[in-house]
């Protein structure tokens, strides 16, 4: 038991109910340079501060969602559905 993450469906739950995937990243185009792919697969911003991340409510509704969280103190995070991600970030996220 630690901090509580807000599932957009179920509400606040202990973070142990969730699975963290990774920070939100832009999937390169299939024909992108290999260096773009290694960047996508291996490299991370790893922000000390706010970042948007993928989480999965494993022990609850089993939904994927995004949370903008401060990695320094876990407080005041904002969680939302992927469909509510601003369209420009989604385009950058690519792959659609």
């Amino acid at each position, binding site marked *: *038991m*630690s901090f509580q993450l807000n599932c957009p469906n179920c509400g606040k739950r202990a973070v142990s109910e969730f699975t963290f995937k990774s920070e939100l990243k832009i999937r390169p185009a299939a024909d992108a340079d290999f260096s773009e792919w*290694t960047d996508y*697969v291996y490299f*991370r911003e*790893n922000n000390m501060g706010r970042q948007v991340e993928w989480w999965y409510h494993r022990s609850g509704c089993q939904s994927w969602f995004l949370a903008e969280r401060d990695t*320094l103190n876990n407080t005041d995070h904002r969680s939302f559905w992927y469909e509510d991600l601003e369209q420009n970030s989604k385009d950058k996220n690519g792959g659609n």
Partner: protein
Amino acid sequence: MWNNHELKKNYDVVIIGGGAHGLATAYYLAKLGITNVAVMEQKFIGYGGSGRNTAILRSNYRTEEGIKFYDQSLSLYEDLAGELDFNLMFSRQGHFTLGHSTAAVSGLVTRAENNKALGVDSYFLDPLEIKKMLPEIDISDHPRFPVHGALYHPPGGIIRHDAVVWAYARGAERKGAQIHQLTEVQDILVENGKVSSVVTNRGTVSCNTVISVVAGWSSEVCKKVNIKLPFVTHPLQALVTQSYKPWLNHVVVSGTLHIYLSQTDRGELVCGNGIDTYPHYGMRSTLGFLESYAAHVLELFPVLHNVAVQRQWAGLCDMTPDYSPIISPIDEINGFYVNGGWGTYGFKASPASGYNTAQMVANGKAPKMIEPFRYNRFVENRLVGEKAAASVGS
């Protein structure tokens, strides 16, 4: 011991991070005659991982790269107390890595055999042999995950981690390096593709070389020069119990249960487990850690049920995709080096890390020992094979 200095206008080398790695680097640089060196520490020396780990030393890694590197580190540790004239309380207790499944046993056997082939003392023990050395361990089939065997590594042990930090600091200082505590590096300036100076809360100093040796905080430091790293910073938690008469005279690690424990000369059991599952920089400890550690340690040693936890804390681990560090020049910026990605295995590497980093900086090129740990391996997709053997911190 060491003194507080004014910042000089210029240093040949600025080491960012006053942990064991940074201080060891300063010490070995000084031994190579490079003494116009400043170690910049934002807090106090040993504030980060160096003071928050569980002080376990071992060299029983899986890959040739890992085994050779950590074996060098262990050899350096052996003579360090004498060399630095500081008792580091290296307690060579022998190190158990327990396996709780056939797959885990297979991995342990691989490590044992690879170790033997490279001259590192490691061998496999069956549960009865384990029981002889650890009489209170439960090797019955009663636990949820029964003990199937162990990799035993006689040269492994524990050391007084803070002492390593202080001894290197004193050694470096005595040879001419300067240690600046409460000195925060706010920016790193690059001119014409070359490191030119470092901006701190106490002023700007010029320098030719900057080494980032800040482990969990590496991504933030490297952002100052627009270098992206393959690191994710996770917390790793640990605890000590109250003091009891020495009962455990070996280091015990269980990969499946994600726990490790040893007992210090003060009588406290020092305990840790795997990294927290999500990135976090806050170093705030959790109740969940206490609960899961307790549940797991009692699987192994039920007699510890009334042993009380005295203190818990968290440190930061800069995890890499292949569970191996980066010790490397950065091609894009002349004079900028990264030493990081130490994950849960950094403390035991301190001497070899410092030694090889110093060689790398002095010669402008990485020694063979640390070539596998170059930055570009992630760009080239040539990873080191330690992930396959990754057990918990230990």
